[in-house]
């Protein structure tokens, strides 16, 4: 390959132009200027390449050289990803810190994976095996939670000429040799993969298993399936980040990839520190041991936001290819879209709606398309999934803008965050009337089989009650609560119970932060029963003030905070208590 070396002719923020670049390809990575800044070619015109630079361009001059690597922007995939935190182009932030201190300077060169660390490799294939892309060559215990499978890269197939014995190897050491139609291929534990290209699968299936998140309003009313996609739009301070953190903490995914794209530095610090302390409720292991973090904060170079999203999803695909359920959170996809807009503006492309480029919709779609439950490559019949949850930050909290609208066209779940709810500290501020999930039917079977048969019936009933509440509230606004018949007022009380104590869930309460599936269905059962019984009481002329004054309302309100290990006993007690209280009210009425 002959060298392609050009010269900078123009610098405008994160975008530069260089001439003498003939022979370069779109999306090739280049090294820019005396400090070897990393950039990517995003337009070619004759011998002039337009390049987005992933680092600060201050002080660059026309005339400085640009060198093409003639390789697409790629990530390194192999053991050592888990528990790491990377910038948008997969440079490990801890390593950057060692080189440049507390602040990130530009021009840092580091490799994504530790070269010195030895991993214990256990072979699963043997000499002379015929292997194809996706087959497992061996395994490495990457963390206490993740058994990392070393796979044959997607496009490779042939006969294993050799494979190493069980032992300790670095990621650079050869572990296998394959005779392929194209010749001998030596493999290490690392693969490189271009981030803008989806890793192949055989076929995508419809998702059918819910991703259990421990968040009541989500699991019960607006579930996401493993392999599904969800959008969380909401104005500032409505709770997108807290929600994504909750999902990253408590979802029953095997691997979590958390992408902080153009958001706050402290939030990434928070994830890093909290996840190193918190334990997975299922396995009791530290959460960080199943998590990969990508942090491209708002003050880091804007072009790298684009890269960060692709870096994240490619890493997610890699773990999916091992047969795992992966969950990816992206906070916030709006910042990514804005980066597209900024770069597009600098390219003087024809602006579309609100200045976003015309390809906004297709880029978003292509990204979410990389989610899904899939049959994987390889001779074994295996499945894996990627669920994607993306925050959207609409200007002024108005969902009619292009990023929210284009996202909603693609994603199957819509968690609409509501500033009014957030203002009154109703959290999670998911608006139950506007939100939806198109997976309800898909996951129903799972709930019936694993938790209880009433799941769907209960949620429909609760939702109907909440709908009714909102209609009644419109009337109350005009005539006052007094004017309503007692029955309707009782109905309002029943709805209030669910709204205030089931839908609301504190992310910061030690117990309430995670509500297991079984506890959810029990809680809702009790609350619906309460609602039924007070309706009954009201229709038998029990006074509404007596209903409101019931003491057991308070115990019901606190169900979420009852420790998860012993909830059954307490729930029984509470149920007993309120039945008794209502019975007494009824009896008194009859006398």
């Amino acid at each position: 390959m002959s060298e392609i070396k050009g010269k900078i002719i123009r610098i405008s923020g994160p975008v530069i132009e260089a001439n003498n670049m003939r022979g370069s390809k779109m999306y090739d990575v280049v090294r820019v200027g005396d400090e070897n800044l990393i950039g990517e070619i995003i337009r070619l015109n004759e011998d002039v390449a337009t390049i987005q630079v992933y680092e600060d361009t201050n002080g660059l001059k026309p005339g400085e050289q640009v060198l093409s690597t003639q390789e697409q922007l790629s990530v390194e995939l192999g053991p050592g990803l888990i528990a790491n935190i990377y910038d948008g182009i997969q440079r490990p932030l801890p390593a950057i810190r060692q080189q440049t201190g507390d602040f990130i300077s530009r021009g840092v060169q580091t490799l994504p994976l530790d070269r010195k660390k030895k991993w214990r490799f256990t072979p699963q294939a043997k000499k002379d095996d015929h292997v194809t892309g996706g087959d497992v060559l061996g395994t490495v215990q990457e963390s206490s939670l993740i058994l990392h499978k070393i796979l044959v890269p997607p496009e490779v197939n042939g006969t294993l000429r050799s494979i190493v014995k069980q032992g300790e190897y670095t990621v650079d050491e050869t572990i296998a040799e394959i005779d392929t139609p194209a010749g001998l291929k030596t493999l290490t534990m690392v693969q490189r993969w271009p981030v803008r290209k989806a890793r192949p699968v055989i076929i995508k299936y419809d998702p059918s298993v819910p991703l259990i998140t421990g968040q009541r309003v989500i699991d019960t009313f607006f579930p996401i399936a493993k392999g599904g996609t969800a959008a969380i739009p909401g104005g500032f301070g409505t709770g997108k980040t807290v929600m994504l953190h909750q999902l990253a903490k408590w979802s029953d995914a095997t691997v979590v990839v958390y992408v902080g794209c153009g958001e706050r530095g402290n939030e990434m610090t928070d994830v890093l520190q909290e996840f190193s302390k918190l334990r997975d409720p299922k396995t009791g292991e530290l959460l960080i041991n199943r998590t990969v973090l990508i942090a491209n904060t708002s003050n880091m170079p804007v072009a790298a936001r684009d890269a960060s999203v692709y870096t994240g999803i490619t890493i997610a695909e890699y773990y999916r290819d091992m047969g795992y359920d992966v969950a990816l959170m992206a906070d916030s996809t709006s910042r990514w879209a804005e980066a597209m807009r900024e770069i597009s503006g600098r390219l003087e492309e024809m602006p579309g709606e609100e200045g976003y480029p015309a390809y906004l919709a297709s880029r978003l779609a292509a990204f979410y398309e990389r989610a899904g439950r899939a049959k994987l490559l390889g001779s074994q019949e295996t499945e894996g999934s990627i669920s994607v949850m993306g925050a959207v930050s609409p200007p002024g909290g108005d969902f009619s803008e292009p990023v929210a609208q284009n996202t909603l066209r693609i994603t199957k779940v819509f968690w609409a965050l509501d500033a009014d709810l957030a203002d009154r500290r109703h959290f999670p501020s998911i608006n139950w009337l506007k939100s939806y999930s198109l997976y309800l039917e898909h996951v129903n079977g799972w709930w019936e089989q694993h938790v209880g048969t009433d799941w769907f019936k209960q949620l429909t009933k609760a939702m109907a009650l909440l709908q009714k509440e909102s209609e009644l509230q419109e009337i109350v606004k005009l005539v006052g609560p007094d004017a309503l018949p007692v029955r309707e007022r009782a109905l309002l009380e029943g709805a209030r119970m669910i709204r205030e104590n089931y839908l609301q869930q504190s992310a910061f309460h030690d117990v309430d932060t995670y509500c297991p599936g079984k506890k959810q269905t029990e809680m809702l059962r009790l609350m619906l029963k309460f609602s039924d019984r007070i309706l009954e009481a009201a229709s038998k002329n029990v006074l509404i003030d007596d209903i409101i004054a019931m003491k057991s309302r308070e115990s019901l309100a606190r169900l979420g905070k009852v420790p998860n290990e012993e909830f059954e006993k307490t729930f029984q007690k509470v149920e007993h208590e309120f039945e008794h209280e209502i019975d007494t009210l009824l009896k008194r009425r009859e006398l």
Partner: protein
Amino acid sequence: MKNKDIEYTTVSAVEGPLMIVDGVADVAYNEVVKIRTPNGEVRTGQVLEVFEHRAVIQVFEGTRGLDTKHTSARFIGETMKLGVSKDIVGRIFDGTGQPLDDSPPIIAKERRDINGEPINPCAREYPREFIQTGISTIDGLNTLVRGQKLPIFSGSGLPHNEVASQIARQAKVLGKEEEFAVVFCAMGITNEEANLFRKGFEQSGALERTVMFLNLADDPTIERIILPRLALTCAEYLAFDLDMHVLVILTNMTNYAEALREIAAAREEVPGRRGYPGYMYTDLASIYERAGRIQGKKGSITQIPMLTMPDDDITHPIPDLTGYITEGQIVLDRALNKKNIYPPIAVLPCLSRLMNQGIGKDRTREDHYDVANQLYAAYAEGCDLRDLVAIVGEDALSERDKKFLHFADLFEQRFVSQGSFEDRSIEQTLTISWELLAQLPDAELKKINVEYIKKYLLNKKD
């Protein structure tokens, strides 16, 4: 000859705040330019774009009087820098970093790029140290912690300056005597407003510990683009080199954003919402993110940016993008101000995102989080009822609802309202909270742990 000795007289165009120079060589992106006007005055500019031999320059002091014939430009070979040393404390500077007071220029120990560098998220220390401001709505409900960026959203004519001065005057970390400094960055505010702050600093004895960067209402607007960067470069030096706790007041960010818009318009960029540039989020983030704490360092940078919401509209791009970057917001409200409530803080839209880890046992008090939540819920309900009562009258309410309605009024009068020199301790704030909560039925206090209700309410009632 070095480039920085060449005087280019090849100015080809002057337009709005921009000037274009042709035939240049070896010019760097963002490099500083010294511009000599036809009558010999020297101004400062910065390279916004270079294309082969042409440079687009933004001129900080404005382009009035520049021409394409006699004006010359010299590229000084480096990006904008600020000289720092510990003598910077107590000094006053103008929009280009030149001293405004009578003392001689400081002898810089080091010259730092004013754009700074992003703090590595791995190096950050999550802020959790409670700052008592003595203002109940902040301490009780929207707690400020060291290293936070917490803006004040205001409207024209509202007392944001008084509130900010009160915070600056009263802010302290309990039980600690530590080195602190105030960095005050004024963008386009009036002389009178600047004096109010100065007086405040004087009263609290902070003046000698204050660094002021002033660009007043009649100073060149484009300078406002660099002013906060000068101030934050100074703050970073004080916090992370000299171990000081630095409070940075940036006022008024609305004027900053206007300057940004002016440049964008002059460059004929595709405008984003309401004419503000599409990259305003990123630009503002490059300012606000320069707050925080760093592991192993004693110092901290706490930012209180102030802005006026055009037309009191919180969805306007300036407050909106700010809210998307900062760690909460304190919102002032015209209706409360009309009711003569000072500080007119509308608590519902306020937020402190860093509150949770800064309060509670061993930090403020065990019941703090629950109490704050309960106050919020009760006040929100009271406000709803107010709207209802306006239509259907108070008689239509149940006894329970009447209590909440009454609670909302009391809350504004006793909790929100306080003197501009009243410095309430967190204990006082919580005591008032419980007195107000006592007005509600105990069973309604569902957000509060039963233990705390017993300890702080029932025991007292007996």
